[in-house]
């Protein structure tokens, strides 16, 4: 069994049933997980910031960094596995977007990431069937290609699935 490990701003997809797609220690970042039931392909992008306008040059080397460019890039990647390029019929799951303890939510990058991800998904008429967003903890996400099971771990907490 192989693991496809995605760093910040990276995206990847696989249809090998032996694989898992994994990303570590999401803080304010959001993992967007796309599942194509038709081709049994799993894709994931580790989004760090909401909008690419903050650094358009970065889009050329790492489109996955931003919500508005990462999701289209992931759909394009998954289309090479025979998936619908518009994501038709996909199952979507989201995790991450955490924040520091602050009742005013001053540094709301996590929340803005989550909103920007949802906005971009809506453009493709996609919505999440499961999400674990916000709160004040780090998340590591592992998705099994064989089962589609999405496991979330966080140091000091029991594992959970979405």
């Amino acid at each position, binding site marked *: 069994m192989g693991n496809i490990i995605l*760093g*910040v*701003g990276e995206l990847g997809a696989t249809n090998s049933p032996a694989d898992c797609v994994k990303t*570590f*220690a*999401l*803080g*304010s*970042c959001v993992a967007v997980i796309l599942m194509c039931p038709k081709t049994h392909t799993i894709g994931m992008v580790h989004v*760090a*910031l909401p909008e690419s306008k*903050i*650094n358009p040059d*970065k889009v050329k080397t790492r489109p996955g*960094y931003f919500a508005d460019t990462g999701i289209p890039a992931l759909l394009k990647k998954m289309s090479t596995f025979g998936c619908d390029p518009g994501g038709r019929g996909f199952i979507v799951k989201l995790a991450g977007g*955490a*924040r*520091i*303890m*602050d009742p*005013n939510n*001053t*540094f*709301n*990058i*996590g929340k*803005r990431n989550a909103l920007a991800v949802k906005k971009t998904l809506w453009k493709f008429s996609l919505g999440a069937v499961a999400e674990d967003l916000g709160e*004040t*903890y*780090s998340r*590591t996400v592992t998705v099994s290609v064989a089962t589609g099971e999405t496991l979330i771990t966080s*140091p*000091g*907490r*029991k594992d959970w699935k979405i």
Partner: protein
Amino acid sequence: MEQRATRADILAAIQEIPLLSPSASRLLQIASKEDYDINEIIEVVKCDSALTARLLKTVNSVAYGLVHQVTSIDRAVSYLGERLVAGIALEDSAKALFNKKLEGYEGPVGELWEHDLRTAIAAREIARHCQTELSKDLAFTAGILHAIGKAVLSDFLHGSASELLADIDSHDVKDYLEGERNILGMDHTEAGFELAKAWELPESLQMAIHHHHTPQEAPEEYRPLVYAVHLGCIIAMMSGSHSSDALQYHLDKHYTDYFNITNEHIAMALLEVNESVGVIQSALSEGRELSE
């Protein structure tokens, strides 16, 4: 039930921690001065052959991708920057602490160093937006050191993370610091402060270590630095952390008294952290492997 350690046990453990190397100590003293000459840094490095070798190996690492090899220590220091030179000397001198597995925080080997490096990069970025003069190099160095107390407390916190997080979730304690104090009578900022005193670090660095989660309690003269590290630590946790205390601290909103920061600045700092941490980590580990 297992007997928990006491404050006295922790203070005794701190006294057992080896002192920093003379080079690291001297570099931190120099870097904490408001005005210093880069030649002072170069002179210290030149007197330490192991540090000289490490710096040359680091600057010539593949990660930096320089076309021409750097063979002089003057050029190596100037390329790496004083802040990173002090950081490398510090990591070399106290690598057992920086690279230990943070078992008490359920963090892997290297987690503390990575968090410290992320904090240092973010604090340096935040320092640019200070309303008064604040040395970016000093903010970086303070960031490297700020969480050193966790290396001390980790050994005394085994198996406590789940209980501590449950107490925070149920609002029985307000944050991880209070949880540490409930268990051990001391939190990691105080443990770090005690170690900083034992190491005779400059007062500015002692204050950054002691108050990085409670910057309002720092003496007024050090608050810009301490707030830079406070914000740097938060940005580092937002950028990703593998330990149980990640994001379990409060933002002190009074940072606005010292910094003009927008959400865009925070986003830029996050970008810089993610960009730089990998390059610095790769260069340092290459330099380390080649030196050994």
